[in-house]
């Protein structure tokens, strides 16, 4: 590789890294506690626990829905959802209107057997950490901005791999040179940690970028697939009396055999039409539990109106989520995720240090020190 090519890649690596450094550090630092948010919420008392019941039958869903409405007078139900890892809990989302903004929604957990209110969900310090991580309290603009930083991160990784060759070709793999210069030692650590974590960092970075596009993808799905699903019902008024939630669930399960309900969107909410319930069904394997299938049901009768698989881009979004969160391989994988996150912080920090050290070294002479230390062309 010629010295000029190396210089070009070095400029790309330096500036894509520097531009995104501050935000990547924010993402890595907030991402670290988010890996363990279930555990932290439990520790701080923000995780509702189901009551102990000796093989009691679950309450009807309509009873739970009524309890949710009673707990939030004057508001409406938007969604009812189930966590596959917490079968004893039903979560209810209430808002000021069916199409109310997500930030105005209140999520409460109810016991699936007694229908008793167990407490609020998604509150406490982890909510602040989550908001910082996803949009920095700047809404959709913040999400898209962080997505752009993620793209820069990906370019920095690729350019780092390109530069790995000229900087390490004379060294054995994993060499940390024992030199008096701290800069050389950190350069070796930066190269080693960067190159061994490259696949993980790219996967987590790019799936994070995909997640920032979630709302755009949902808008696209609503404008195309959902619009075509509800087209035959155009002009139908919103239901006067809603079908029983238990009947809706039974009909949805019939339409998607072998699947269970992940969540139900009430008529008028962003995930369905003004006249239909939408039941989002999931499978029971690690993969199919992520791939939801929407079933559209008449709001008054509960009859199935349509059911079809999500388009590829929403399936990609759903698969990208576990690959970003690292929450699909038990506690050991979470610990490994945390260690890799820590290593990424070291790579970012050492990169910043190397840039500052190079500037300090270059300043007195006014010459380009990179040219001095750039490897010979090969």
């Amino acid at each position, binding site marked *: 590789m010629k010295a000029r090519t190396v210089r070009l890649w070095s400029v790309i690596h330096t500036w894509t890294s520097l531009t995104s450094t501050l935000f990547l550090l924010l993402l890595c630092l907030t991402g670290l506690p988010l890996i363990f948010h279930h555990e932290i919420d439990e520790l701080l008392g923000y995780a509702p626990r189901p009551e102990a019941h000796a093989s009691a039958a679950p309450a009807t869903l309509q009873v739970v829905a009524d309890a949710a409405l009673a707990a939030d007078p004057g508001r409406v139900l938007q969604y009812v959802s189930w966590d596959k890892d917490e079968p004893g809990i039903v979560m209810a989302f209430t808002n000021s209107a069916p199409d109310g903004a997500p930030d105005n929604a209140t999520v409460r957990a109810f016991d699936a057997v007694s229908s008793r209110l167990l407490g609020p969900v998604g509150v406490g310090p982890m909510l602040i950490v989550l908001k910082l991580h996803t949009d920095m309290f700047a809404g959709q603009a913040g999400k898209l901005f962080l997505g752009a930083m993620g793209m820069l991160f990906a370019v920095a990784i690729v350019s780092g791999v390109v530069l790995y060759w000229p900087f390490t070709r004379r060294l054995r793999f994993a060499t940390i040179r024992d030199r008096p210069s701290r800069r050389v030692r950190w350069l070796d650590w930066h190269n080693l940690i960067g190159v061994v974590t490259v696949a993980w960092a790219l996967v987590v970075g790019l799936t994070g970028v995909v997640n920032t596009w979630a709302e755009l993808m949902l808008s696209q799905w609503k404008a195309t697939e959902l619009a075509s699903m509800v087209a035959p019902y155009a002009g139908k008024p919103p239901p006067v009396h809603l079908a029983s939630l238990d009947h809706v669930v039974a009909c949805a399960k019939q339409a998607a055999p072998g699947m269970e309900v992940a969540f139900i969107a009430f008529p008028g909410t962003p995930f369905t039409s003004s006249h239909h319930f939408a039941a989002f069904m999931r499978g029971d394997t690690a993969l199919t539990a992520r791939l939801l299938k929407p079933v559209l049901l008449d709001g008054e009768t509960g009859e199935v109106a349509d059911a079809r698989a999500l388009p590829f881009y929403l399936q990609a979004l759903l698969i990208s989520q576990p690959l970003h969160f690292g929450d699909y391989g038990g506690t050991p*994988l979470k610990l*490994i995720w945390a260690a890799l996150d820590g290593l990424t912080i070291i790579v970012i920090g050492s990169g910043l240090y190397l840039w500052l050290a190079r500037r300090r070294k270059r300043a007195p002479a006014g010459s380009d020190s990179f040219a001095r230390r750039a490897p010979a062309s090969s």
Partner: protein
Amino acid sequence: MMHGSSDRARLWIRVFAAPILLAAATVTGLLAALLWGTVGQYVAWVTVGAPVAVVAGVWVSHLTQKT
């Protein structure tokens, strides 16, 4: 010429063999936990954890050499 290019290929393999193996292991592990249930989880712990183990190993050996 032939000799030079084969040297270069050998050098390239020496530099990139370990990173490519680790990257392949990581991707395999990330997908295994998603596709192969409990067995996949065990595979993921080993393969996704491999880069962490390499860095830890180098760090320990660096510390040992110093002392």
